[in-house]
């Protein structure tokens, strides 16, 4: 398949392929470009609703799509201030760690049928979910390290919401597992291809998953953790300069990995495009999966233009009551559907 790279020894090819996957698509560079796009889209779509232009003057011809780049350049020239009472090491290193951990789940989420060749594992779903769940723990530490009352309250809010929405999230994942009977995401997509997309097989699990994702990534109406009129910027209040850019980007990258998982679990992943090899088995299906998850992301960021912020105690209550009940119903539905189908 990669015969055009004739000057490279054959033994290097798998390594090269992995490197391509990790660095270019759907890895680092694709994520970076997507972050540009999705932040631009969020601002532009909200601006459209709100009767204004949104980002425009940085490259007017493209509608200001490189606004984030301009912001990043500006951030990098600002002073990075560490508050006197802050715990230095966690305060300085956690943003980078958060960024790394928000990218990591994408390693385990396949983008094509041939992916199992690169990352052979029967537990990709479990691994992906496990790595998405690491982030809130760091967020709580980060809020504590900043030595700011608003950061501290933001971190506590994160902890409360984490506990109350992680349970429905895990239940939604469990009902997906129950539905497909496997933890291998490649096989899960195969099952969806042969029957129906997961969102039709178990719509309730998909709804619970989306609610949990809105909560986990702090999208409106669940931007309770960084509520600006209450807590300035929640756990990230004390960050300045490039570190602020990092912590601002983390939720978007998290959103990407969650959406990728959603399109694989419920939208039958790369469904129409299947094949083998590098191009047919990874790139073309990868683009289909990518586009599906971008559509999911666009929907989730568009909520900003519609809803105000929810309240902490009500959100926690909802997480333990109707979202939890929905998750239980999803579990039951999965059991029924899987019994009917196979």
């Amino acid at each position: 398949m990669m015969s055009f790279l004739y000057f490279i020894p054959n033994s290097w090819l798998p390594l090269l392929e992995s490197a391509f996957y990790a660095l270019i698509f759907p890895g680092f560079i694709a994520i970076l470009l997507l972050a540009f796009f999705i932040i631009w889209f969020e601002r532009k779509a909200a601006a459209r609703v709100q009767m204004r232009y949104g980002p425009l003057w940085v490259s007017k011809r493209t509608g200001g799509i490189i606004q984030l780049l301009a912001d990043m350049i500006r951030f990098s020239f600002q002073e990075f201030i560490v508050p006197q009472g802050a715990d230095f090491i966690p305060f300085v290193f956690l943003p980078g760690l958060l960024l790394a951990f928000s990218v990591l789940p994408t390693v385990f989420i396949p983008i094509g049928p041939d992916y199992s060749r690169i990352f052979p594992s029967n537990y990709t779903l479990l691994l992906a979910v496990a790595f998405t769940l690491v982030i809130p723990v760091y967020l709580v530490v980060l809020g504590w390290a900043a030595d700011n009352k608003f950061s501290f309250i933001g971190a506590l809010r994160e902890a409360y919401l984490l506990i109350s929405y992680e349970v429905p999230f895990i239940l939604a994942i469990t009902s997906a597992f129950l539905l497909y009977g496997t933890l291998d995401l490649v096989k899960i997509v195969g099952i969806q291809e042969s029957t129906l997309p997961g969102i039709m097989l178990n719509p309730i699990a998909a709804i619970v998953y989306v609610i949990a994702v809105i909560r986990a990534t702090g999208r409106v109406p669940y931007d309770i953790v960084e509520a600006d009129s209450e807590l300035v910027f929640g756990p990230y209040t004390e960050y300045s300069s490039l570190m602020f850019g990092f912590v601002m980007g983390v939720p978007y990258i998290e959103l990407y990995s969650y959406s990728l998982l959603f399109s694989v679990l419920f939208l039958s992943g790369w469904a129409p495009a299947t094949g083998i090899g590098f191009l047919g088995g990874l790139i073309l299906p990868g683009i289909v999966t990518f586009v599906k998850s971008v559509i999911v992301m666009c929907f989730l960021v568009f909520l900003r233009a519609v809803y105000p912020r929810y309240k902490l105690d009500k959100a926690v209550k909802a997480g333990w009551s109707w979202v939890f009940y929905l998750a239980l119903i999803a579990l039951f539905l999965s059991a029924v559907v899987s019994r009917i189908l196979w």
Partner: protein
Amino acid sequence: MTQEIKTVPFTYEALSQLEMKEGILELQIGPAHAGSGHMRILAWVEGDTVVKVDPDVGFVHRGVEKLSEDRLYIKAIPMVERPSLVDTVNANLGYVIALERLLGLEPPPRAQYIRVITAEISRIMSHLYGIAIYGIFMGSSTVFMWAVADREPFIDLLQELTGARITYSHIIPGGVRWDLPKGFADKVEVALRYLENRMKDYEKVWINNPVVVARSAGVGKLGAEDAIRLGVVGPNLRASGVKYDVRKNDPYAAYADFDFEVPTFKEGDSYSRLLIRVEEIKQSMSIIRQALKRLPEGKVIYEDYYKRMSPLMKEIYDKTGRVKFTLMLTSLSPPKGEAISRVEGGRGEMFYYLVSDGGKNPYRFRLVTPSFRNLPYFTHVMPGHKLADIPVIYGSIDYFPPEADR
């Protein structure tokens, strides 16, 4: 109707006891905070529950009262407008009514009607601004942008009338500075229809939004008796079920000529404080329409002032409807005495007290603004709520720090 108000007495002893208590966190919200405005809110929280709130006002004190003692009577007009920047016409009107009572003159009916029209346009803008601030405090940038932008047609109208966009200084002792331009009524009708259509969008996206109802219904409740006892004013008082409106109870300008409702709600919570502003916008529209339909003919300036104008000024007035400032207007010296006036501003009752010693400057000027009188919401209503309710209650009472600080 009565409800027990959780009050922590404000003494330093009580305060220090509070601070000594374990598990209480003192939060300084503001003055540089996204949810504070130009003030500082000292809040003590126990867990997520607010136990005490102390609004620290005065960050934008301008000294309007003291400064006006050094100004000519007419030069104090631009200054009394400054504190309440989104409701300048009503602020201007109250001062001028007090001054006219000192001077003992009654402006002609056409001027009174024009005053009512501009005052109601100003009220609509003030309420829209209140809705906008409420929106952004609850985290909805959409409603903030919409409501601020929907003031635009009304700003344009007053710009056409007065030449300014925010501080118009349009109302002067004895009348108004400009007559309505040609075709003004049609333009007002276009703006009103625009807003009527927009209000439907607000209802869909904001007023009936389940998250808005969940966050504001039942939050920040104040019963009728407590509202009277605490002395809150304006739409907030009416939202608590007290039918009190200066326009009805003590009519000024031409308000006695119009029939309009004073909407009230029984609940007295944040959601009803939002709804009452929407209702009052509808009433204001009705008043503007009535006033434009029944607009009397005649001069827009006190007859005696017109007579004493120079021929050139009279010619300018007859041709363009513009009142040039004569020496007589700029050097008013009312007889010795004192006068009070009350107007219903966008945020509530505005009270003016003017004392004259016969000179060219006010001897004493007192201005009581509605925002200052709505401060008890911080100290008496916020305690007992959650931390996230502070911006909701703050936004719902339409508190404007520069207005309170004067």
